[in-house]
């Protein structure tokens, strides 16, 4: 499913001691991008740059200040949005993984993944099949009967990804899926990404692991202080930063990240 974000803006009101009493913080400033079907979009940005805020607005758990979000070709956020039932129906085909992780600690792994899948509209049989497949793929099937709270952080995170994938999504929105994972887990998860993109899934994810982003993503967006400062394929970004292109080993994005977000070099691409 195609995701389109158009001119998204979000302001927060923060109470302060200054005479006015309230200061308005601009969290998102005219953010636009789209994730076409079957593509992977990598979201990079410093802490508090607005990555999670964008994702939350797309998922409808946070109201926007202005701007629009389209899922498929239907507006789910903005002035012309479809009714609540339709928006929920559209969002049911989106697999979402919040940064703080969102599963029930006291429920058994398999049981709860099946529950979430069924909540997203799968039949019981389908849900069982999907959950089994993804738990095996992410190598956490041995914990199927464990309560989630008994699992280690990394394993819980694999389960979390399985939860997002086993809902048969057409679009995945993942907030820092790789944070705090061991290298093997990262590899397994990256494989899961590649596997699912083959079947036409679109993915939007944020990460601080730039080498992974450079490797996995078709398009990369760099967001800084709520503004999209860079948008393009990893190669385009390298070009803009003046890094050599035709080398055997592509320049890691981490090396050019500083150059890309420096004020002088900002050239906002549409």
């Amino acid at each position, binding site marked *: 499913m195609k995701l389109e974000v158009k001119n998204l803006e979000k302001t927060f009101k923060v109470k302060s001691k200054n005479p006015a009493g309230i200061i308005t913080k601009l969290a998102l400033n005219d953010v636009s991008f789209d994730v076409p079907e079957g593509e992977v979009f990598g979201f990079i940005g410093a802490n508090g740059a607005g990555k999670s805020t964008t994702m939350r607005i797309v998922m409808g758990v946070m109201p926007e200040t202005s701007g629009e979000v389209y899922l498929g070709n*239907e*507006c789910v956020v903005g002035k012309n949005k479809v009714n609540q039932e339709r928006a929920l129906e559209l969002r049911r085909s*989106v697999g979402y993984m*919040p*940064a703080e992780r*969102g599963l029930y600690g006291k*429920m058994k792994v398999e049981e709860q993944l099946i529950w*979430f899948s069924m909540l*997203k*509209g799968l039949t019981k049989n389908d849900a069982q099949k999907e959950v089994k497949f993804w738990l095996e793929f992410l190598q956490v099937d041995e914990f199927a009967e464990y309560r989630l709270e008994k699992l280690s952080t990394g394993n819980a995170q694999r389960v979390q990804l399985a939860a997002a994938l086993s809902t048969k999504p057409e679009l995945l929105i993942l907030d820092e899926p790789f944070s705090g994972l061991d290298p093997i887990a990262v590899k397994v998860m990256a494989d899961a990404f590649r596997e699912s993109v083959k079947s036409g899934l679109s993915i939007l994810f944020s990460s601080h692991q730039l080498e992974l982003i450079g490797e996995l993503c078709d398009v990369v967006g760099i967001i800084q202080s709520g503004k999209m400062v860079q948008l393009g394929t990893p190669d385009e970004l390298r070009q803009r930063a003046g890094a050599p292109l035709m080398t055997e080993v592509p320049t890691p994005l981490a090396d050019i990240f500083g150059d890309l977000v420096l004020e002088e070099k900002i050239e906002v691409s549409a």
Partner: protein
Amino acid sequence: MSDEYEAVPTNASASVEAAQLNGASLEAAQSTDAAPAKINVPNIMEKYSRIKVNNTFMVAKREITTRIHSRIYRNSTIMYSLIGIIFTSLAGKSNNSDAPEPEVAKAAEEAATYHDLAFNEVMKEHGLDPSQILAEITEKTNALVEAAGATVTFDFTKYIAALIIAMCLMIALTQTGNVIAQGIAEEKGSKVVEILLSSLKPVELILGKVLGIGFSEIMHLGIVYVVVYGSAMLNGVGGGGSSEFSFGQMGMLAILWFIIGYAMFAALFAALACSVQKADEVPMAIAPIMLIVCVGFFMSVYSVLVPNSTGLILTTVKFMPFFAPFCAPIAMINGHMTVAMMVIALIINIITVPITFIVATKLYTNSIQK
């Protein structure tokens, strides 16, 4: 439904369905094919209401299974049942031994004696005028009773039964309220709610939670009730009670009012719990409701002691939403409320339930989206 559409693709209902799926407005579809589309509007409504019921049912089912499998639930069911069994068997023991007669029997005996005395006296004085005699008998009885002290008008069994019922109601309500509040706060803290609200409406989520937790709590109370009542019967104290109500009826009355009280408070617990950021702030957040619950409890106990009060608070409190669940059953058991009054109180309180629900859902949605 979808099979039907596939079978008859030219059917107007299919066009409306398709229009809906394409995100086009329903009105547009209706204007092109006004008459048949109108008939099919309920179909769409039905479709959405079915989804809603499914979601609510799924949330409720999850709540019930998690709650029943939790150790606290099992342990407290066993604990309450055990306490009930111990109390009833102790009561049975003391009944069988030559313990002093219960207050109520003593009072009844006293009343009968005075009544007979008065009757004889009046008969001697007047001869044969039954109505007048009866009237004067009553008057004299009252006078004598008053002279002997007012023990007859105070039914101790009823009072104790009322006290126990009010206490059980309070414990059950605060307990379920806490479960709801904790659950909501945990969902918010762990961000499960972000996943949930991207597939269902807030009202479905709250309704499902309230129904699920409510069902498991009623089951819990039901088990304790059956065990304790059974044990009371075995120990020979189950048949007791006051002249109007047996203990069994009192229990039923309490469970009825628990359901209404729960429905009224539950959504509010959810709304308040949602305002916190962490689960350990929940007790502070729900303190206002706890205060209402406590006030309701003390009101119910107090109103039994002052049955003939004409004060505004004590007369209205039996009907007032949020207080009636405590005060009404107790007033009923003590005979301060007629069946008609009870029905009025029930109607007032049942009407309040959807109102609190709507307000709570609004509050919930607002604080979740912050």
